[in-house]
């Protein structure tokens, strides 16, 4: 079989970006949560907030470190596998991605160090300020990345000169038509991720009766947040969908596996879309519902996939099912949040074992939903790399061979597998160590690296734990 560099490069990019996305989607939400905890402690002086802040800062440190490591690869991917794309779009992508690095550096250099290592070195107010700045930094980072991605989906503010994009309006290009929906959807997804992880871990502690007062507070906060955010995210997602319908109708058609442009289109609950046959098998549907959802009108017209020639259609099966996974998990999240509201009566929310176990089980849900969402939006754009202007094939590095792409794909998977397994193993140790007062917590700021992981003093193996105590 001939190795296809295009397919392998797409797989590689998908793998690297999805692997990387796990970390920032968590740290964006968690950074705000930590800032909130610091704020609550600053105001109330209740030590429970401080202990929670300390514990979650340790988790943040490890996850942030893994995000940085996996992110370095991203900045080289454009050049190695998509050099034609890099060259054509460099006038926009170069400055935007550079600004992401520059602002991320600001965050790391100025404030992350203070947040992680400055507890006893700077006044409480300054420490709180550092926590706020770290949270702000994660938003600024997300701002640039989503601006770059949105521009690829809905490119404006440029003119093409000799096949290269020249920016005519930075404002138009950065704040392109789909940017605000994408940014809002992503930021809320980050908050949901942070919320479900904190809720799940708090529930896990409550099941084991550890640090009950502090974890009750944490769980209660999270559930209020989730009660508001889960339905709000559905609304934002709906607006995002309307925007996509306007600018990328083929993507919406793929999400709904709708082949013919029609009015009063049914919502498919189940189907096996078949791109070769240009039709679906085994459809189960609710009449007119897709029209209602997408156009807010029972008789609204929904565009069909066949508006685009077969070779300009996205992989319908993948987009259709990824979209259903995302929406299904979203509905499950709403249900869990509502159940929490019901169980609040009589405080059962803190003691009902089934509910607590459900919350533990839901820790992975927002991650899967986010990854599925990225697959929808990225695969749904296929075959376009820059919507309507440049295809994947045109953006590919011309000198790239299938063997090279395969070698690096396997290589990155191996490297990341090690990083991920070690990181997750270590993270579970940090969590299991919990919030108990840690004798190693005292930090003189000398000698230890001013680096994320160094803020988590949990030893790596059991043998070591004894060694440290002796």
């Amino acid at each position: 079989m001939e190795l296809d560099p295009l397919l392998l490069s797409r797989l590689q990019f998908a793998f690297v970006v999805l692997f990387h996305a796990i970390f920032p989607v968590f740290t964006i939400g968690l950074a705000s949560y930590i800032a909130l905890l610091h704020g609550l402690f600053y105001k109330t002086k209740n030590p429970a907030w401080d202990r929670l802040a300390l514990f979650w800062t340790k988790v943040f440190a490890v996850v942030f470190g893994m995000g940085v490591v996996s992110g370095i690869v991203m900045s080289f991917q454009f050049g190695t596998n998509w050099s034609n794309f890099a060259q054509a779009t460099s006038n926009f992508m170069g400055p935007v991605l550079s600004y992401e690095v520059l602002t991320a550096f600001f965050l790391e250099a100025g404030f992350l160090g203070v947040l992680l290592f400055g507890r006893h070195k700077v006044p409480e107010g300054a420490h709180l300020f550092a926590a706020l700045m770290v949270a702000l930094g994660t938003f600024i980072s997300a701002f640039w990345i989503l601006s770059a991605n949105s521009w690829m989906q809905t490119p404006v503010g440029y003119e093409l000169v000799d096949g290269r994009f020249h920016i005519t309006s930075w404002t138009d290009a950065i704040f392109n038509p789909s940017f605000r929906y994408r940014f809002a959807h992503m930021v809320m997804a980050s908050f949901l991720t942070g919320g479900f992880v904190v809720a799940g871990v708090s529930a896990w502690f409550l099941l084991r009766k550890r640090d009950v007062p502090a974890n009750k507070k944490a769980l209660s906060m999270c559930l209020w947040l989730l009660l508001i955010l889960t339905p709000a995210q559905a609304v934002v997602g709906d607006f995002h969908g309307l925007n996509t319908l306007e600018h990328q109708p083929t993507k919406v058609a793929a999400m709904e596996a709708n082949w013919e442009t029609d009015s009063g289109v049914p919502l498919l609950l189940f189907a096996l879309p078949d791109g070769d046959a240009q039709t679906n098998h085994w459809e189960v549907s609710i009449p007119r519902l897709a029209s209602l959802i997408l156009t807010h009108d029972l008789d609204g017209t929904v565009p069909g996939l066949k508006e685009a020639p077969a070779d300009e259609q996205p992989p319908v099966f993948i987009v259709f099912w990824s979209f259903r996974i995302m929406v299904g998990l979203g509905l499950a999240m709403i249900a869990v949040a509502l159940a929490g509201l019901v169980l609040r009566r009589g405080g059962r929310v803190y003691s009902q074992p089934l509910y607590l176990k459900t919350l533990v089980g839901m820790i992975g849900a927002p991650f899967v939903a986010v990854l599925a969402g990225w697959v929808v939006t990225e695969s749904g754009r296929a075959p376009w790399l820059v919507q309507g202007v440049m295809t994947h094939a045109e953006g590919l590095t011309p000198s790239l061979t299938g063997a090279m792409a395969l070698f690096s794909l396997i290589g990155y998977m191996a490297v990341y597998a090690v990083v991920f397994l070690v990181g997750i193993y270590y993270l579970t140790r940090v969590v299991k160590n919990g919030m108990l007062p840690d004798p190693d917590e005292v930090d003189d700021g000398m000698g230890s690296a001013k680096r994320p992981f160094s803020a988590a003093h949990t030893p790596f193996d059991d043998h070591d734990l004894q060694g440290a105590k002796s």
Partner: protein
Amino acid sequence: MNLDITLVWAGIIGFGVIMYVLMDGFDLGLGILYPFAPDETSRDVMMNSVAPVWDGNETWLVLGGAGLLGAFPLAYSVFLPALYIGVFLMLAGLIFRGISFEFRFKSRKNRHWWNRAFCWGSVVATFAQGAVVGAYIQGFPVEDKIFVGGAFDWLTPFTVITGLGLMAGYALLGATWLILKSEGHTQDWAYAITPRLLWAVLGVFAIISLWTPLVSVDVRERWLSHIHLIWVFPILAMVCAAALYRAVKQREEGRPFIMALGLFIFTYLGMIASKWPVIVPPDYTVWDAASAPESQVFLLIGTVFVIPVVLAYTTWTYWVFRGKVKADDGYH
């Protein structure tokens, strides 16, 4: 506007590259020397001496990569495909090295694995970087602004020499850094290996100096057609080498490192002088490779703001962690 913004960007990228080479150079060098260290205590000292600063050092690589895309996209979109396998090896090496920094001190039972990750990560990353330098001197087959060579064009006998040469060079930087930061038997060891590393570097230096004119006609023309001011760079590099040797013999603590930095800086300036203003050898100058002026200006606004902050923060970190390092500093 009289100011040529492309020149400004060439200066920024050039500055970023040498900052990266000098700063990540000595901590990669320690990784290369790692297996030869006399004992585990010395390894603790070696790692502790760079633990607080290595991450800041690598920031220059990320800034350089993103800046290159923003300011000289042609260079970015030729170098990365041409160096595809090398870039992968470098990133994999840096990742393994990065996580071993974090986990070695937290691990006792598995510490030898993290030692290995630190060493091999450093070796692979350094060799790949050195081979990149060689590939740059060689030049790239480019047609219509697109790289048209093969996956292993970057790996030739010449680039193997430059790869090994950079390993020796980084090891020299690492050893002189260790003289500055350590004491006792670790420092004695560093004093002992430094002259040997210096001879290795000078040997490679000689080979490359003789070989480069054979690899590149333009370089031969520039250096040999008539006597230029550029000869001052290799002469100053030799002066630094001699001073380094003397300083080690006199057991000076700070000067060997400074002289090793000087050796690197003048060699680097010499290399730039060989190629300027070509950024994608053999054909494209910095002006050919530049992005649109409005993009360069837009990016410059943020960069002039951040680089002083990076420099100030870096200086401050080095100041905080000044002085000798002890073996048990890093482990609480």
